């Protein structure tokens, strides 16, 4: 059990954090005066009264960028230990990391080419297919999938 002793401070901190959060909630419930009014219960208690619901959706590109970020973030995490032992790995390590970086770079190229980093109005860099002909059926299908939530 000796090895677990060093984790004791973390455990204590964890308990303290939980206790503080719990205490705060309980204390405010007990101590604060409760006098609700309709103005107080509105989503925005001050400023202009909202005319319609706040938008629920925001561009899917945020997710995309987040994922791209995660990929390159992991690459950096991978490079860090490599840099630490660079001397011991020698030329082999250099070659391998260049291959690795090249692979990552190619994927970045692919992302750019496919418009993953384009912002602003949607501009289709490459058509889905040069061969796809537009028919009523295809339009209906695309509209159907595109506006799933609206319908």
């Amino acid at each position, binding site marked *: 059990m000796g090895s677990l002793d060093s984790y004791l401070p973390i455990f204590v901190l964890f308990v303290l954090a939980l206790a503080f959060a719990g205490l705060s909630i309980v204390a405010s419930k007990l101590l604060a005066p409760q006098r609700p009014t309709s103005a107080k219960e509105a989503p925005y208690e001050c400023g202009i009264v909202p005319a319609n619901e706040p938008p629920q959706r925001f561009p899917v590109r945020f997710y995309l960028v987040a994922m791209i970020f995660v990929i390159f973030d992991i690459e950096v995490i*991978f490079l860090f230990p490599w840099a630490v*032992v660079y001397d*011991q*790995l*020698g030329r*082999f390590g250099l070659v*391998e990391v260049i*291959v*690795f970086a*090249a*692979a*990552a770079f*190619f*994927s970045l*190229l*692919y992302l*750019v*080419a*496919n418009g993953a980093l384009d912002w602003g109005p949607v501009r289709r860099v*490459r*058509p*889905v*297919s*040069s*061969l*796809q002909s537009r028919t009523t*059926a295809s339009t209906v*299908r*695309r509209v159907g*999938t595109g506006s799933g939530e609206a319908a």
Partner: protein
Amino acid sequence: MTGSTAILASMAAHLLAAGGIAMPRIDYTAILPELILLGGMLVLVLVSSLSPRPLPTEAYATATVGIGIASLVASLVLWRDVSDHGPFTAVARAVNVDGFGVLFLVLVSCILVVAPLLAAGHLRREGVGGCEYYVLALISGSGAMFMATANDLVLIFLALEILSIPLYILAGFDHLRESSGEAAMKYFVLGAFSSAIFVYGIALTYGATGSTNLAQIAAFLARNVVTSDGVLLGGLALLLVGFAFKVAAVPFHMWTPDVYQGSPTPATGFMASMAKAGGFAALLRVFVTTFPTLRGTWQPAIWVIAVLTLVLGAVVALVQSDVKRMLAYSSINHAGFVLLGLQAATARGVAGSVFYLFTYSFLVLGSFAVVSAVGGKGDERHGLERYRGLGRRQPALAVTFAVLLLAQAGAPFTTGFFAKFYVVEAAVSAHSYALAAVAMGTAAVAAFFYLRLVFLMFSDVGRTIPTHEGAATGGTPTDTLEMPSAGGVATLVAAPVAALVEVAEPDPAIVAVSPWVAAGLVLCVATTLVFGVWPQPLVDFAHQATLII
């Protein structure tokens, strides 16, 4: 990218295990087929990114076939090396180059030669061009190759992920179809879950034996008797669950019908062949070479799983009205047959399983390619009724499908028969008579739904059939002895390519078959029939599937 990560990561694992940085010698020739696939994949990505105009899907298909052939050649060179100089391990003993592994390298290469041909037509028709299908297939293939040659549980896990993740994407590849997205989500969630179980199995096994290296685990188990073996058996069980999920063995098959049905059809065919090849390769290696000492423990478990898989696959397929779903259950039944070889746990059993996977891969690729063609634009019309009268509309396509289906049923003079024969022989030689009998019983059940499809294709629509009573009034004698026959079985085997391509008739039910798909189908059917009559080379080949321990 992921492939390089795998190599480095497995290397890193060894560095850590060694306690210091001891540089392993990387034998690049030992992993050349995998490197060819990954290098080719990078080239495809680069070309597609830099080309000013989008390239047609056929260009990528051709390139992928080229890459597949290159890796096939590299695999055959390795095979020759192994048969001349014996098996060896490479890259800090993480990679096993033995007859068994090399056979799977050849199999994966073959799949990668055939699959792009069969997919090209579908991708063009559905308007989902681009390099993605091919790139994902290549990555997945490299994962399957690493799985087959891996000699370390950690590498097997990484390979499993490299194999699976592209398959998840392929399942959801057709972004215009909602069912495709659903399939991808199901496959991904359940797949991730099974991967987690698998990792836990690795951890427990490591805890019990002190190594993740298959050879070291086997050596440890051979030297020591594990008295309290709860941890080890738990690890074994979790590993089995992880593998069983990948190869769709009952009761871990739940995802299969939905995913097979929802995925774009060429992706389904690829998934069925590649995931089974990779999954069974590692499953066979781990259980037969690493845990032979525990055979008494896991053989009964495999026995039960095999029986469930065989029976459920065959019986549930009977009531399916969607062809893709039916083939999904039939693939579960086939997985049961491959398990016969594992249950035998002998060299003969392993050879039988390898033979089965070899033949099955071509059958399933070809079958799903036909389904894709018949499904028509939108890839949605897969009901059984769609196949009624196909034999009259498009005889060559129908005959192709009939051959593939009959081979799956195990008709004689096709590879399907010898595959079943081989695994049943293995089971019998391991005294699993009951299992062999159950397997053949399910083969008979399975024959029913294959035949139903064959009959639908060759029965005619709207043709008036003289009834025994009804035709009485028209009974005028003629000068021949002929019966008023039903006719309608169309051309037996036409000159295949030419006939497949001709689609000029105005019948709306006629579906277009691109020459690429036709070429791929000819390859599948030729393999099925040629090796069905002359199986000697394939049998010899499977006999090389020796595992080093």
